[in-house]
């Protein structure tokens, strides 16, 4: 392997180092998946601790300080370290395969996104050894100002989210370019699989939504460390500015979390109903409309902050309008079931259940879009129920559907159906046991983020019920993990297209070769493999031509460590930031000079 003066020697392509230096989108997808799932388990443990404390009135399992840290970190872990990266795992692994490309547009940038994410995730999680963030995941000022939370927890929050934002931004830019520029011949935008459409939409949302959060975080960092007064009302600042910057990011973020699941469901439902997705253009445009409208609704998180009547009216109207494209999607999914010949395996069960559980979350969303109703719901357990039906009943159910569906493509093995169904039913029952009673608790006036509550408020029964449900979810996850390890010991028997699916990722071996496709496929219809099947078009034979793939590189992980060092600066000594900057500059230099062929 060639060594260029001034750059590092080429890494070898075997063993652990082959994973550390990989730029292969499939391996990066696997790294994302395993890391994110580990964080999901950790976030789940946090949730169980929270539920244990709340099981009975005046619980004494966890003290107030730890409790505030736990619910803050539970949200941060689940949102930024588990669900978003699980979405990333899917779109890393699948997007190039689904568009008939050999890799993403910028393979090394893709690796860099992963390593920066890992660094940011570990940094945020390590805060438990010092002070974990404790001001909630939306971290409202002035509670998060130094005056009221002097410990390092908020600094961990700020630095962690800045690093994770950098990672997401790089990944999003990469996927925007990949999807727009690298589709196989014949794969027009209106033939793009819905999952890829959703990936594109998410990528656009991230590119545009992260900067306001970044600016808010920078301002908070300066307020806390360099005595600016952006959010200090007494000095001419305004704590509400933080809320605006946060929610301008935060609301699109909700769609960033849910759209991958919507994409997955839109792939799974047609395949197991054995018929095309009902109303493909409507589903795609509804997704675009949701993303577009998602920019004009952020202030519905702030209805009780004393906003004027007119802005509340406008934001309420915009929010209700989002119900329309969401409804269109739900009805099209139901339409996909109609007239089908439905195979109910685990992947399909998760997708069908998704329709119902996500609908519950969607409906409660419309309920508190109404500001007078929201004045009762806001910051109560009703909202907790709502977000969990969207994020668990929606995003997580969709992601599990995707895991069962694409597992053979990713590993060459099937997940066990018996254990899979057990996993599904336990999770479905557990999720409804946990989160449905939270509606009742909200209606009974229980505020969120309280570490204790008194007897005599009629909250005890449903809290206990929810806690039992949360442990049922826990058991379902154990069943899944067991299923995973059991399946990984099976031989690789999966054929190329075990489900008789229609999209391009099934037109190559399971798991696919490093170069994805021996011959880049040509697309002739919206459901290419079904079209080719029905028209007896054979997959072209490999030509034996030499296929060029980008070589592995040290620079992504090196640069990521530089980014991590830069982030550690504000938490310890700014010299580390300077050192990190040097590492980053060196990496950019080496990166630019490294030959990519």
């Amino acid at each position, binding site marked *: 392997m060639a060594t260029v003066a001034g750059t590092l020697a080429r890494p070898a392509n075997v063993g652990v180092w082959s994973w550390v230096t990989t730029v292969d989108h499939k391996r990066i997808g696997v790294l994302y998946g395993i890391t994110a799932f580990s964080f999901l388990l950790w976030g789940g443990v946090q949730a169980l601790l929270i539920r244990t404390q709340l099981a009975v009135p005046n619980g004494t399992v966890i003290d107030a300080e730890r409790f505030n840290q736990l619910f803050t970190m539970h949200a941060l872990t689940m949102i930024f370290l588990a669900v978003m990266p699980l979405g990333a795992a899917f779109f890393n692994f699948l997007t190039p395969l689904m568009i008939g490309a050999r890799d993403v547009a910028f393979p090394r940038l893709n690796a860099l996104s992963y390593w920066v994410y890992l660094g940011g995730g570990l940094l945020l999680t390590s805060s438990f050894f010092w002070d974990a963030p404790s001001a909630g995941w939306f971290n409202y000022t002035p509670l998060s100002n130094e005056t009221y939370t002097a410990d390092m927890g908020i600094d961990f929050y700020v630095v962690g989210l800045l690093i994770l934002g950098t990672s997401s931004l790089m990944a999003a830019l990469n996927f925007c370019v990949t999807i727009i520029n690298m589709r196989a011949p014949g794969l027009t935008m209106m033939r793009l699989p819905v999952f890829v459409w959703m990936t594109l939409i998410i990528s656009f949302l991230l590119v545009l939504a992260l900067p306001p959060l970044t600016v808010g975080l920078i301002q908070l960092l300066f307020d806390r460390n360099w005595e600016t007064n952006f959010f200090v009302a007494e000095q001419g600042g305004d*704590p509400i500015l933080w809320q605006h910057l946060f929610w301008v990011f935060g609301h699109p973020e909700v769609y960033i979390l849910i759209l991958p699941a919507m994409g997955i469901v839109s792939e799974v439902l047609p395949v197991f109903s054995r018929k095309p997705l009902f*109303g493909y253009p409507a589903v795609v445009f509804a997704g675009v409309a949701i993303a577009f409208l998602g920019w004009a609704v952020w202030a519905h998180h702030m209805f009780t902050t004393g906003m004027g009547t007119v802005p509340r009216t406008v934001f309420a109207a915009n929010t*209700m309008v989002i119900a329309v494209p969401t409804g269109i999607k739900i009805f099209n999914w139901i339409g996909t079931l109609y007239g089908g*010949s439905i195979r109910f395996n685990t992947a399909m069960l998760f997708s069908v259940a998704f*329709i119902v559980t996500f609908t519950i979350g969607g409906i409660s969303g419309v309920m508190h879009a109404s500001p007078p109703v929201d004045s009762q719901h806001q910051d109560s357990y009703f909202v907790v129920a709502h977000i969990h039906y969207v994020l668990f009943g929606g995003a997580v159910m969709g992601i599990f559907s995707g895991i069962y569906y694409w597992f053979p493509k990713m590993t060459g093995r099937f997940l066990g159906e018996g254990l899979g169904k057990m996993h599904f039913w336990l999770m479905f029952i557990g999720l409804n046991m946990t989160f449905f009673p939270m509606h009742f608790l909200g209606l009974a006036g229980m505020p969120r983020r309280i570490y204790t*509550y008194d007897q005599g408020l009629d909250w005890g029964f449903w809290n206990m019920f929810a806690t039992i449900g949360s442990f049922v979810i826990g058991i379902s996850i154990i069943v899944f993990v067991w299923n995973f390890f059991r399946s990984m010991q099976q031989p690789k028997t999966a054929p190329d297209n075990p489900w008789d699916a229609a999209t391009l990722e099934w037109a190559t071996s399971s798991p696919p070769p490093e170069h994805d496709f021996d011959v880049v496929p040509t697309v002739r219809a919206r459901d290419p493999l079904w079209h080719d099947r029905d028209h007896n078009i054979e997959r072209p034979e490999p030509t034996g031509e030499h296929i060029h793939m980008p070589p592995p590189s040290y620079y992504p992980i090196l640069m990521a460590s530089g980014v991590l060092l830069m982030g550690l600066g504000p938490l310890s000594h700014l010299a580390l930031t300077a050192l990190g900057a040097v590492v980053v500059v060196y990496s950019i230099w080496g990166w630019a000079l490294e030959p990519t062929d």
Partner: protein
Amino acid sequence: MRATRLGLTFRRGRRLLPIVALVLLIGLFAGCGAPQSTTEIAGDYNDAVWGPYRMVLILAGVVFVVVLVLTLGFSIWFRERPGRVAQQIHGNTRLEVIWTLIPVAIVAMIAIPTFDALFKISDDPPADALKIEAIGHQWWFEFRYLDDNGETILTTANELHLPEGRAAAVALRTEDVIHSFWVPAIAGKVDMVPGHDNNITFTPTKARPEPYLGQCAELCGLSHANMRFRVFVHAPDDFDSWLEDQQQEAATPTGDLAAQGEEIFLQSACIGCHTVRGTSAQGVIGPDLTHVGSRTTIASGVLENNAANLERWIHNSVDVKPGSKMPPQGASAGGALTDDQIEAISAYLLSLR
């Protein structure tokens, strides 16, 4: 074979449905009877909001049932069977239009009463409204009753007394972080935000001896869960006499223990933060204690107001309320007061009726 097993699952599912429905109903009613219920509101807020609220609840239920029935129905009806061939349908424009218009109609049905209600609850307070300033502190509520010129005529804490049938115009302020003023059974919530002159106006409509429970609804730090308050709604005459009583200066203690307690109180660190009108205690950091003996709870609604709890609180308030700004006073907790002294002080405080 597989289909049969699944069929069984679904049949079992169908048997479960009535049970699930029953549980939901029980849950909703449980929500109604609760002391902090958001659905049984004894205030004018109820007239404005219950309309859209009920509309939202009903429509939500209808939409959910439709989606559930269709999903479940199609799942059962169209499941894989020998000889069944899936119909290759790509879509149907007429259906798309219909199910675009249905959500539009539903949203309109929610939106119109919503905006109507919104403007109603946002009306300016009537001229004869009772003017009150509520100030959030970490972690307790200060209430000031104001006269027509905006001058404070009474300062109290954690228990708000209101006359039935008269609008209360509450100006919401905060001393530190964002708090939220919420009495679910009387009105919705509005936040207390530094630098913002927020307010809420509502009219309690039902006098009753037991209090309406309120609670801070915005995360405000360590003891957010312990930031509670109570609202007592009186008949107008009763309210007037309550107000008059509360405006009196502190009573001179009668018993020996209480008198001794006053002496210790006035020589201790207590007066740095607390006011007892009519004495030298003029601190303004903690709650006004002039009539603390007349309150039903201490520690912002966390403890019942009695001698044992007062002693516990004074001894080490952090033990009751994590993060409490009141330093421990008991000698064994690092303070300067002996158990006897604390007992005397609590007797004194209880005498301040």
